């Protein structure tokens, strides 16, 4: 699992990346009330916004940690956005992306991310 500075995570399985937001981000947002996940087929570029997550008082763009084409957005979040709070790094995933570039350059591993969080 790898992490970005903007608190997104990515789990690579072959050329399929599952992405979401970290527990730190979910906690900072408060109760998630809505997630705008991308449609299948959408082309995403690393660093660009590809989803939006909303709590009652805040809204945040979610940036793609990898480039590629969206295979599916997590449809379960539409009816149960609270999943993002309950299990942000598991069931609360946002999208599965077929990566065009599987490099994890610029991303941190768990230890590095935890160290990064300590500096905030």
């Amino acid at each position, binding site marked *: 699992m790898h992490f970005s500075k903007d608190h997104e995570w990515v789990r690579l399985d072959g050329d399929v990346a599952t992405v979401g937001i970290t527990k730190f981000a979910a906690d900072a947002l408060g109760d998630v*009330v*809505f997630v705008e996940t991308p449609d299948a087929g959408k082309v995403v570029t690393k660093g660009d916004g590809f989803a939006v997550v909303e*709590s*009652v*008082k*805040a*809204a945040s*763009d979610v940036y793609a940690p990898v480039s590629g084409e969206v295979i599916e957005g997590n449809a379960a979040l539409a009816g149960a956005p609270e999943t993002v709070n309950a299990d942000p790094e598991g069931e609360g995933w946002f999208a599965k992306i077929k990566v065009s570039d599987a490099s994890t350059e610029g991303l941190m591993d768990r230890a590095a991310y935890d160290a990064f969080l300590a500096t905030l």
Partner: protein
Amino acid sequence: MRYLPLTPDDRTAMLAAIGAKSINDLFVDVPAAARRDGFVDLPRVAGELEVERALGAMAARNASAGTVPFFCGAGAYKHHVPATVDHVIQRSEFLTSYTPYQPEIAQGTLQYLYEFQTQVANLTGMAVANASLYDGSTAMAEGVLMATRVTRRNKAVISGGVHPHYVRATETVVHAVGVETEALPAAVDAEADVIACIGPDTACVVVQTPNVFGTATDVTRIAEAAHAAGALLIVVVTEAVSMGLLKSPGEMGADIVAAEGQSIGNALNYGGPYVGLFACREKLVRQMPGRLCGETVDADGTRGFVLTLSTREQHIRRDKATSNICTNSGLCSLAFTIHMSLLGETGLRKLALLNHEKALATRDALAAIPGVEVLTPRFFNEFAVKLPKPAAEVVEALAGHRILAGVPYSRLAPAAGMDDVLLVATTEVTTDADIKILASALATACA
């Protein structure tokens, strides 16, 4: 100065508590070049009596609708508002309260907004409505923008029956964001002409019923054509009372309704403040602009209401908001709700029939005048007539005889080549005597 409670002694004591020698110390950050001693060149303080005299003199120079035979419509209508409405909206807790951002001490406002949203949704035949926008014209502009967001297409086709001010206000705003509009030429009875203009880049078609010429249209066919092409149908309604008699926009397939609510609870007020009604289909609700009031519970489990889905709005999304709207029409929407509560469905239907009755009688009286041709085939409470002379001249002449005969279409759209068209509106307030006076004066003026 009656609105300023501080006394000179108060000011002295407060400056001492602050540790400032004079009030000027508190303005120390103002650059010297911008400081002004003395008073701006305007009249000084005036007592209530003086202000009443000055403003009263201005008011006296206006011919108010209630004092003359009155037939003006074209987007603003004179209806009778029950005395209760104005009393209730002047209660301190409604007049002087703020936006309900602290719901625990604003349930009065939140509950009536919830009732308002329900009334508007039911009136328009739609699933949901917001807590009001500024007016019908800005509601139409917001509707077009919403349609472009939902369909991700960039063009709006607007019928030739939509109110020219509404068209212009919409064009001004949507062109600024690169949305294209195709506004069809003015036409008394041609809402369906928009169908031929629908293309793959059409986000929405916009029609009005009753339109600015008063024509009532069944837009079901237009809805079907739009939907078949993946576009939305926006229905504009400028006379809210019409929905008490005519099939609702929702029933006819509208995706978005942008309407003017002024007719219910609100005076003519020379054009404002009015109240924009905005309603849409269930699945479009997250793209809806403006404030929304929703139901919830408090910590004790008691039902209550709060502003919700706020993340669409400017104070959170900032540069990604659905719109930059902050204020709604507050007190005007309360007036609407109270009047609608008094009317109820029974009263509204009756009121609508009375409006229609007066229009039929007026139409008959005017149709009998040689040289006058009634243009509108089916109408609610307003219709267009063609005169043998420029309508603006006739209206001015009749105004000189203290008759407000209606609105010349040329006032709204001088380049439309319809200088001889007059828009005539009636309501439950119109009397048979008024109709007689109008008919007689018009006959003389047109001879």
